[in-house]
């Protein structure tokens, strides 16, 4: 019989040092936490924790600064990219990122979002698109799907009345200041791994000073969608992805070269380990 001691234990998974050891306010099945985890891992891997600054939005992730072990602040609703601009211009050597929901980024803050991208502001935006206003209780968002029932579109979103959901990743890709604009999904493990790669590239774009970078993450809100967490993941796959196709909408040439180099170095790392 073998007695196992601490010496036999091997750490295979742990909390990134860029995340704090606290409970979040997020509901069961919400993917905000998944996104935080991915960002935390990327910050650790890039070794930028000591120079990263988080700009939290207004919405479910208002308290994101409590969950990250980096300097942080809370912006006014929709103004995260403007506040991030002020910080980045004051501190060009810091890595500044926002974590914003769809109401914050694509509705009340769309002007700030578009202009930050148009200026090629060297910041990174993590955009949580869950097609609903979460914090206020499930109202229609600018990204709510056609026909989607919410607490403020009880008969389903009627395009004649409220127009069409906005595809932000595509919209921002059209601006020359944008270095990187992609859409990923957080509904299953494979897509989560892809999302992490995109988040890493988005931060690399900022580190390289290439311009504005954004990762739109299709996310769940089981509470306000009236679903179980598992049903919510399926709903992302079956309803959101068809309207919001996953993909790279803008990757500037310099970044593509960088990605190839990173790809090689990652491959080497994997071989070594």
């Amino acid at each position, binding site marked *: 019989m073998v007695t196992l001691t601490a010496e036999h234990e091997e750490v295979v998974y742990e909390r990134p040092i860029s995340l704090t050891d606290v409970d979040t306010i997020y509901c069961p099945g919400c993917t905000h936490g998944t996104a935080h985890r991915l960002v935390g891992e990327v910050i650790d891997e890039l070794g930028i924790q*000591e120079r990263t600054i988080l700009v939290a939005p207004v919405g479910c992730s208002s308290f994101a600064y409590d969950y990250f072990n980096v*300097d942080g*602040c809370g912006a*006014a609703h929709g103004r995260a990219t403007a506040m991030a601009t002020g*910080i980045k211009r004051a501190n060009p050597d*810091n890595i500044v990122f926002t974590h914003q929901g769809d109401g914050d980024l694509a509705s009340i803050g769309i002007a700030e979002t578009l202009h930050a991208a148009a200026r090629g502001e060297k910041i990174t935006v993590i955009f949580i698109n869950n097609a609903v206003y979460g914090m206020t209780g499930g109202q229609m968002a600018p990204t709510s799907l056609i026909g989607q029932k919410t607490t403020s579109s009880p008969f389903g979103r009627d395009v004649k009345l409220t127009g069409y959901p906005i595809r932000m990743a595509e919209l921002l890709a059209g601006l020359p200041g944008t270095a990187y604009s992609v859409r990923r999904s957080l509904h299953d493990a494979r897509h989560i791994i892809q999302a992490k790669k995109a988040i890493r590239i988005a931060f690399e774009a900022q580190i390289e000073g290439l311009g504005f970078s954004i990762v739109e993450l299709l996310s769940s809100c089981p509470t306000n969608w009236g679903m179980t967490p598992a049903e919510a993941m399926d709903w992302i796959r079956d309803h959101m992805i068809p309207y919001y196709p996953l993909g790279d909408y803008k990757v500037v040439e310099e970044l593509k070269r960088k990605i190839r180099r990173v790809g090689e170095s990652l491959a080497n790392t994997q071989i070594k380990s």
Partner: protein
Amino acid sequence: MSEQLLKGNVAIAEAAIRAGCEAYFGYPITPQTELLEHMSKRMVELGRVFLQAESEVAAINMVYGAAAAGIRVMTSTSGPGISLMQEGLSYIAGSEVPAVIVDVMRGGPGLGNIQPSQGDYNQVTKTTGHGDFHPLVLAPATIQEAIDLVGLAFDLAEKYRTIVFIVADGAIGQMMEPAELPPMRPLPDKRPSWALTGAKGREKNLITSLYLGAENLEHLNQKLQAKLKIIQANEVRFEEQFLEDAEVALVAFGTAARVAETAIQDLRRDGLRVGLFRPISLWPFPEKRLAQLARKVKAFFVVEMNSGQMVHDVREAVGPIVGLQVPIMFFGRMGGVIPLPEEVEGEIRTWLTHKMGMEETLPLED
């Protein structure tokens, strides 16, 4: 250093640069645009931050960000821009970061016009944004004073971690006067301990105005109110002219005070004992000094370029004094009209004549 002929907006901008302003964010609006234009050239020459924002909403939030990063930062605008900035100003106040805001007031409401006005008095002193707070508000009457107050504004903003307003009007912004600029102050080589600079070798810093628990938020409010009391005790500023023997004290700030000054000189030539009380800090308002004056003078005569906004603060300062019935009168022009000294004189002469015919103390009138 020597005097040079300077336009108000340019003088304020250059004074800010010399006071160590490291970042400026703004949006064009008449009558302050020369300020932004001066910044667009000089800040870039000096390797500092200048950015023309997409709106005043964005500008104030950029100010919020740079202030959170711990550098001296400023924006300038006019009334319509202040309206848009109120959201950001409230966040800045709640987060206790320092910022200097210049309001070169124009005629309102609405789009109004671009003529000089003092219609933003209530907005800057009382209704600067949602929630309980007051910015510190400084009102220059000359270009030299504007220059001096800008330097002071940055120092006070930093000292108290608060918003400091410089309120000028279109006349002060647009006119030229001889004035002397201060020497360039060296920039600090380190940031305040609370600033967002990256958590290197220290605990992480947090700048926020979000306190979900009612008691926590009340605690923040108590802290803010305590700070306001300290500001009220230490930062009251005013100027007095000819008040030693005055029977009537004119109360006016900014450009209206210059009009009042001319009126007083004319009235004095005719032997009428009138003087000027000019609040320089509109918040904190010099209420204690006004209360003292109420025991000396026979009447107050408030002159403003609005419908009568500061006059309420004068009433509040003087009104509660038991047993005193000092009339507080008001004369103002609105919509961007600057009152003429002759108009002010006429009002005072009429009142004095009226008073002569009466034996009893006059009731309060407006």
